[in-house]
């Protein structure tokens, strides 16, 4: 019921944006090679569907691979940080440094080192996802309510059982917000990677179309990317909610 509600709001927002788009064209009379009309974009979308599908497939694979790797590595780091105190001193600063390096700056390097194909983009997406997952996961694991740990102690829990039954579930809401953040960041990582050097993918297609003044194709590619990113966000959000049926957060709801 609530989900349908959120979807309806999303559709209304999309229609509003579309109306604004038309309005700008009508008022400013920009030529179509600067800003194409929605109809022109729709036509390209249908006409070049196979081309778009091919490049979208590449980019989506990069995003999904980066998402899985980034979440797994981020989780592993969060666990290591939470349970091996000696690691904290070296790993925490490294984590911070890795985060302040602008991805734009290292994208060409990654392409140079790892090549033009998918690997460098997957690594890029992984890098951009890794930090929010690691840091929110670590925060969540660290901030387990002391009373619950005390209770686990009097109930004779081993560290492993305590992790499974107390600390991980307690960290889940924090971790979930990190994963939601990651879901919105992952497409950025993949596209930056493609801009830095690629022979396929939506980012590559957009750059190419831009250079050839095929602005309507560029918009069509952008639209596909946005649609997939939204789909990814909502699927992950639904999955996370299903994992936490007890958790009633209305703040992060997109409505």
């Amino acid at each position: 019921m609530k989900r349908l509600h959120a979807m309806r709001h999303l559709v209304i927002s999309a229609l509003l944006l579309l109306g604004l788009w038309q309005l700008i064209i009508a008022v400013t009379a920009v030529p179509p090679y600067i800003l194409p009309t929605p109809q022109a974009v729709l036509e390209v979308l249908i006409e070049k569907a196979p081309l778009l599908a091919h490049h979208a497939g590449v980019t989506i694979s990069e995003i999904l691979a980066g998402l899985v790797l980034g979440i797994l590595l981020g989780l592993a780091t969060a666990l290591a940080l939470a349970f091996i105190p000696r690691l904290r001193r070296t790993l925490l600063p490294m984590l911070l440094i890795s985060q302040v390096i602008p991805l734009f700056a290292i994208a060409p390097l990654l392409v140079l080192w790892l090549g033009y194909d998918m690997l460098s983009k997957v690594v890029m997406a992984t890098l951009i996802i890794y930090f929010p997952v690691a840091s929110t996961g670590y925060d969540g694991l660290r901030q387990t309510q002391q009373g619950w740990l005390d209770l686990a102690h009097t109930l004779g829990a081993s560290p492993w059982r305590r992790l499974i039954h107390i600390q991980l579930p307690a960290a889940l809401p924090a971790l979930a917000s990190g994963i939601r953040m990651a879901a919105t960041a992952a497409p950025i990582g993949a596209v930056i990677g493609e801009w830095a050097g690629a022979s396929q993918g939506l980012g590559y297609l957009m750059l190419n179309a831009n250079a050839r003044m095929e602005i309507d194709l560029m918009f069509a590619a952008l639209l596909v990317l946005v649609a997939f990113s939204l789909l990814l966000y909502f699927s992950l959000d639904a999955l996370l909610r299903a994992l936490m049926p007890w958790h009633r957060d209305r703040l992060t709801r997109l409505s």
Partner: protein
Amino acid sequence: MSLGLTLNNARIDYAGHTLFRDISARLEAGSWTALLGRSGCGKSSLLRLLAGLEMSDLHQLDLATDDGQPLTDRVAWMAQQDLLLPWRRVIDNLWLGDDLRRRPRNRKLAHELLAAVGLEGREQAWPDALSGGQRQRVALARTLYQQAPVVMMDEPFSAVDAITRLELHDLASRLLKGRTVLMVTHDPLEALRLADQLLVLRPSSLPGHGAELERLPGLGAARPVPLDDPALPPAQAQLIARLRDSEEAA
């Protein structure tokens, strides 16, 4: 099943400030002890110390059990907060200890206890959907479920109405028969109905010693003392006067 405890030299400091020191007490096997004292005097801290929980600051305790074995794993601790895990349904909260120790669950006991604390039909509810008093009753059921020989409860009946509280007194007296119970309470009537001895944590006359324990005998009648017992009202008046005096003496 019964297990008596003797504690000596109990001491807790928080941030260089002594909460209490040189505290001794005897908890007879199978007896109930009520721990009273003004808010913030250190009752919960003493309970934590006895339950073997991690303490942040300086602390000390000589604890002897009657059988000479360590108390670990033989004490049930019910905290002042209910500490229900929000990701476990009500009934799953009861057998948390079984899951943590990889022991089989006792479904029959869990259902019986929930029914006994008046929560039949709420077994599958999420804790967040319960009222404060209902949550406290789940926490009580979880404590009883452990069937530990020593039970430490921090204001276990504080969040329920007067009638429910009386019912829970009956229930706890029945289900904790033979256990050694230490219970923090702010309610003099509750202390007198249930306890064989009363320990009052009050400011010490010695400077720098924080609080000290004063021991008062219980009514010595069967537990729970009936509400219409003629000894109850005068004992209650006396206890309240005593609690007030001990505060002023310091």
